[in-house]
């Protein structure tokens, strides 16, 4: 039981175009799903609606089998969410920060301590535990944020551009972490605009353009369908095709 979204819509401006329209997707346990699109395509908006941070203008969401609208707290408890900004409390130490979120997720102090040990070993930040968050580098901050998102061992993981702005080493950490989570049967949804990364990592991808999902499937299937050499190439052709379609049927 992972993520199910039906016909999600989001309109910020009643007069303008919707930021997200008619978006449905499903991510099952043990699967990595990549939501791919250029800046402004509506990725963040979609993920925020899935995390219950934004109220959809239409549509429904289930997280780990819990309908978000009626069982918000249970759905949130089943979800680990990494925001695009990954801000941390600058004046708390890493251990204090993780302890705080552990308590917010309702974990017992002993359980939190155990999880901190596990995750700091896995993500290699054990030496940083007593350091203030303000003193962390971008890569270190991202690792701590990942640990924070999975502190309560959620069945569903949603990550908003987790590798944006990271160097290769730090990106590699994230990729390994995501694969590890898939190995343990988690449902993972992440957004990115790096095609190569998506091609390497994702079981399935959804291409988002102007708030609409214009294609969905496995990376090899997409390349084959468009006779493209790379995913990037395929994506650009797909964009051109959907823009031509939009031009020929202006009423749509």
């Amino acid at each position: 039981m992972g993520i199910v979204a039906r016909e999600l819509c989001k309109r910020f401006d009643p007069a303008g175009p919707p930021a997200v329209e008619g978006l449905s997707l499903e991510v099952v346990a043990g699967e990595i799903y990549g939501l791919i699109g250029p800046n402004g395509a509506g990725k963040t908006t979609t993920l925020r609606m899935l995390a219950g941070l934004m109220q959809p203008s239409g549509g429904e969401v289930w997280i780990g089998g819990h309908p978000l609208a009626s069982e918000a707290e249970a759905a949130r408890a089943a979800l680990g969410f990494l925001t695009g900004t990954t801000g941390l409390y600058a004046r708390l130490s890493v251990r204090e920060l993780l302890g705080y979120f552990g308590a917010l997720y309702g974990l017992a102090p002993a359980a939190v301590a155990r999880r901190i040990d596990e995750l700091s070993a896995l993500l290699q930040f054990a030496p940083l535990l007593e350091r203030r968050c303000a003193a962390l580098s971008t890569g270190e901050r991202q690792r701590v944020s990942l640990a924070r998102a999975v502190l309560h061992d959620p069945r569903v993981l949603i990550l908003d551009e987790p590798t944006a702005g990271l160097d290769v080493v730090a990106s590699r950490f994230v990729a390994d972490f995501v694969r590890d989570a898939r190995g343990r049967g988690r449902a993972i949804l992440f957004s990115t605009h790096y095609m190569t990364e998506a091609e390497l990592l994702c079981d399935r991808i959804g291409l988002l353009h102007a708030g609409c999902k214009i294609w969905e499937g496995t990376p090899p299937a997409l390349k084959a369908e468009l006779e493209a050499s790379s995913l990037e190439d395929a994506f650009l052709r797909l964009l051109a095709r959907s823009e031509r379609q939009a031009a020929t049927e202006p009423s749509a």
Partner: protein
Amino acid sequence: MSGERSTRAIAWLVYRKELRETLRDRRTLLVMVLLPLALYPLVGVGVSQWVGAQQAAREEQPSRIGIAGRPWPALATALAGKTLRSSELARPPAEREHALRAGAVDAVLTVPEGAEARLAAEGTVELALLYDETRESSSLARQRVLDALARLEKQIRAERLKARSLPPSLIAPLKTVERSTARPREVGAHLLSGVLPMLVVLMVLLGAFYPAIDLTAGEKERGTLETLFTTPVPRGALVAGKFLAVATIATLTGILNLGSLGLTVGLGFGAAFKAAGITGALIPWSALALTALALVPSALFFSAVMVAVAAIARSFKEAQNLLTPVYLVCVLPAMVAQLPGFSLTPLTALVPVVNISLLARDLIAGKAQLLPATLALVATLAYALVALRIAGRIWQSERMLFAPEQRPGAARRAPLRPRPLPAEAAFLLLLVMALILLVGNPLQARGLVSGILVTEWGLIALPVIALVRFGRLEPGAALGLRVPSPRALLGALLAGASAWYLVGVLVESVQQRVLPIPRELLDEIRKTLFSVERPLAVDLFALALSPAICEELLFRGVLLRASWRPSAAGARAASPLATPAAVVLNGLLFALFHLSIYRLLPTFLLGAVLALTAMRTGSILPAMLFHLLNNAAAILAGRQASGVSLEAAGLGSSFSLPLAAGAAALFATGMALLWRSGEGLRSGPAGPRDP
């Protein structure tokens, strides 16, 4: 795993974390601890030195006494000394006052002809002392002259008794020895109660200021709030924890300030007290402790308000911009409460902020009464609760977390708004009235014309312009700054020129029966407002043109547009009132604004008619013209000493039937023109459509 946890436990968790994090913030610590510990002692030392220097300078400065007439030798001796410098004032009586007003001398003493001879004949010499009570140097001169004359009189008395071999006790049947029973403690309390309440309000607010922003808008800006909201906890618990943390910091700040201030006054001011003749002033510690307790509800109140407001902002900076007016709005009532004449009654106990300042004052002075004190505390707690509910609402809304983004570069600025919000207008009016009370009125007492000019342009027009500019309002629509039709201007011309007389007649016949204006007030008005000494142009500019422009901008501009819903604008318009109600409200506000019960009726009528004028013509300019002519006519009539006041307060009886009939005809014609000159904004014939 979650689910069963109580909201309270989560709020406590959030509270502890926020407090820990905030106490690690250098800026908060600075405001909370360092500022009070360093500020008061420093200010204390500075003030006591400054006061001492001022006092010394003033005492050394001799008073200049102008003497009219010829003083006899003993008088001349008495009036010469270290503190008095007398000189002959050879001017005609009419110009003596002028010399005093111009500051050439500090007081004028007139000695009658033949004074010495009358004294020799054991008679009484009448001396006339002219002084200006509003000038400190003149008051001091008066005191010094009186002292010198008392000594001289005593000497003459002794001589007269001696000449008849009578004992001095003959004319001194009573002798009183006085001693003040105010204990040093009370002196200290009195001194503290003067400054402390406002400072405490100020400091509690300052204590809440940064934490309130940091824990809300700051978290939003840093991106941690979004993460926090993905956790499975109710938002109410998050708000409660944060609010309590802010309130704790604010309370601590207040208590530290109280303590430091008390110590400074007790120890540091010792020298200054001795200089002022007060020895051993003690600090009323128990009263300070009580005040610290009373501070908790106000800290809760301020924190709730600030957490609510700061949550609207997207960034730290924006929150600062939003909270600064809130800060001022809270400080102003505290300042007003310091004015003499305010006391904690069951009524003032209900006014937010004012009640807390008054309570603090009473507690420190040891004069607090149980009922109003309890009422003030309960009311403040209730307001805190309301503010907290509002904060909770704001935190539930999605816009609070994800306010529309501002794209860098692309100038996607919101369009200018066509009308001010009712809350903005109310805030503006309160601000202007507070400014007038605190700044305008004292200035007018010093110099009428300059005071009025500063009041009109600086305290009325400037805030209006600031609101339009920084509130991103569209001046044309929000103030009604539009070119009116010629018909509208003609109507305003006729009605404005005749209104003052009609209102005057009405006031004469109605008000003088119901609420007669006291004689002294009439004299005062006549003397100050219709002084022929000033050039007419000055009066017309200061008393007619300036109010016509500035007061219209406020009343028929912002206030009217915010409160009135022209039915043409349809049901979507946010303003609540239909035309008749808006006219009445505008008149009432205009009347209340003038702060005089005697001018209630005329100012109400004038305000209502001006509101109608602005509504029917869709422009503020005819209202300005109307107001200008009305005031100008009153000034001209007043100068004629026939005595019809500004806004026609009916001074005197210049009523004549033909004149009244003519004025009525002019007024009716003018109003008819105004009524039918409507364009754009006027109310349609169908009237308002929705309730």
